[in-house]
């Protein structure tokens, strides 16, 4: 019964999300696209975090997807839609190759290496003048769907839905057991037959595919990119802040965090230009200090306290 009602909620929200272009203009749809992009990145970051691995390389994979898609269209004459699939696959292959080296690292060593990789990708694109356009970046001959706002919105929404779907699968399948076991205690995980490296590699490749895909959708929707926009550190920092605020180790947490921070930042941008970044910083500090499990973590804790109190009254 409880399960059914939650399905209904999901269905209703999906329909509302799909129907947005019917009653919103170009500007709100543009804002929605930006929030959805960050939301997808926040969810994908969290998916890998469930194994205990903190990646600072979201912007790296995102930018890689942007460039792969843009250059496939520009240099290879690929169809823009197909180039999104290509870019996602390319990000996946890169993650697979890199994973063999970096997934042997743990904790801050892993984090710093992913951060460095992002920087390497950016510098490479910056300096490959003839191929990638160097610091000026690439300009596509046209924007996908001729720049029609509703179509761009739906494309981005499709990317987000796919991300949510995969994340939900991670929560409901044996991926959940494997990743949580690896996060909690690698020794126990090994003794229970979990092939730790394999599961880390699967999670790293899948989240990289999603991040590359969102980068490709972004570049096709704007029609241009530069090393500094594609590999903007904000694509790492904002998703991180959103996931932390909403609550890590879940799908719903990063989603809620993205809506809250996304809407707040749009509003703050109008009130105090660039001041929204200060507010972000403050939010991250406060969340880490006072509710490290985020909003949904607080709710979970409260529910647990209540059930414990109930149990002791039996």
């Amino acid at each position: 019964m409880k399960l059914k009602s939650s399905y209904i909620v999901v269905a209703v929200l999906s329909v509302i999300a799909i129907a947005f272009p019917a009653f919103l203009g170009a500007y709100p749809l543009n804002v929605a696209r930006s929030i959805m992009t960050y939301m997808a990145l926040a969810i994908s970051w969290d998916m890998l975090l469930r194994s205990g691995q903190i990646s600072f390389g979201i912007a790296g994979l995102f930018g890689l997807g942007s460039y792969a898609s843009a250059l496939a269209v520009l240099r290879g004459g690929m169809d823009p839609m197909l180039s999104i699939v290509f870019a996602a696959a390319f990000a996946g292959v890169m993650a697979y190759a890199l994973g063999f080296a970096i997934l042997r690292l743990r904790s801050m060593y892993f984090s710093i290496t992913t951060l460095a990789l992002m920087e390497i990708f950016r510098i490479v694109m910056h300096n490959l003048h003839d191929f990638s356009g160097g610091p000026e970046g690439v300009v596509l001959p046209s924007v996908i769907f001729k720049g029609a706002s509703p179509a761009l919105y739906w494309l981005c929404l499709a990317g987000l839905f796919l991300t949510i779907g995969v994340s939900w699968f991670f929560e409901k399948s044996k991926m959940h057991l494997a990743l949580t076991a690896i996060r909690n205690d690698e020794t126990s995980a090994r003794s229970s037959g979990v092939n730790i490296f394999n599961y880390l590699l699967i999670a790293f490749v899948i989240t990289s595919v999603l991040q590359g895909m969102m980068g490709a959708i972004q570049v096709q929707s704007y029609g241009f990119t530069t090393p500094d926009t594609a590999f903007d550190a904000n694509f790492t920092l904002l998703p991180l802040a959103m996931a932390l605020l909403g609550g890590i180790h879940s799908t719903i947490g990063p989603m809620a965090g993205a809506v809250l921070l996304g809407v707040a930042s749009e509003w703050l941008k109008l009130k105090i230009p660039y001041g929204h970044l200060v507010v972000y910083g403050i939010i991250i500090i406060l969340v880490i200090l006072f509710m490290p499990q985020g909003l949904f973590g607080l709710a979970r804790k409260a529910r647990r306290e209540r059930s414990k109190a109930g149990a002791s009254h039996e």
Partner: protein
Amino acid sequence: MSKLVTTGLTKAFSGLVAVNDVSFTMEEGEILGIIGPNGAGKTTFIHLVSGILMPSSGRVEFKGKDITYMPAHERSRLGIARTYQLIHPLENLKVIENVMIGAVFSRGKSLKEARRSAEAICAELGLERLERDTAQLSILEIKKMEIARALANEPEVLFLDEVMAGLNSDETLQLIATVKRIALERKMAVGVVEHVMGVIRELTQRVIVLEAGELIAEGPYETVSKNPRVIEAYLGGAA
């Protein structure tokens, strides 16, 4: 054929030889005691056999197959399971999920099947209310959960590393009876590390004694406990 055979198994940590040239066998249905003073290398020995550590030299065979350098997760699929001296609960998983995990990854069961077999194992051990968080468990319940998790691998060889430590005598007696019954039912070979000699006497048919990494005695508890070398190892060489 013996379930488990080690030949000249040795592990050195840069100079310190923790396990030195240990050769032993374990047979089907046997409960073997592994005893020795603190630092004798008992836990390191189990680490080597279960693949948590790789040996410096020597050989480990499981049912005639060389598994000396096989990774731990593959050994657990093959049928070697263990518990840990220091408890290792997976605190973000529920009790039932803690137990299921071996059935899912070592035995390749679906989540549904794994849940069913985990419930059966917990029932056998008397572990209840399986939807709880591990933080809500008593020490006895955590120990039972760790045994249940090892059993969910459906092992042929099981090592229990000081599972009775921290339990009172009633709880210990209860757990001894359970382990004995399950080992018998499943025809497992069980290796038990314990400091409580009463447990070793009750539980095991045969004992090996380690001291400073070396195997110094082997045989039934009654004989081994009268062996002068063993007494010296435990009480010191003053006499």
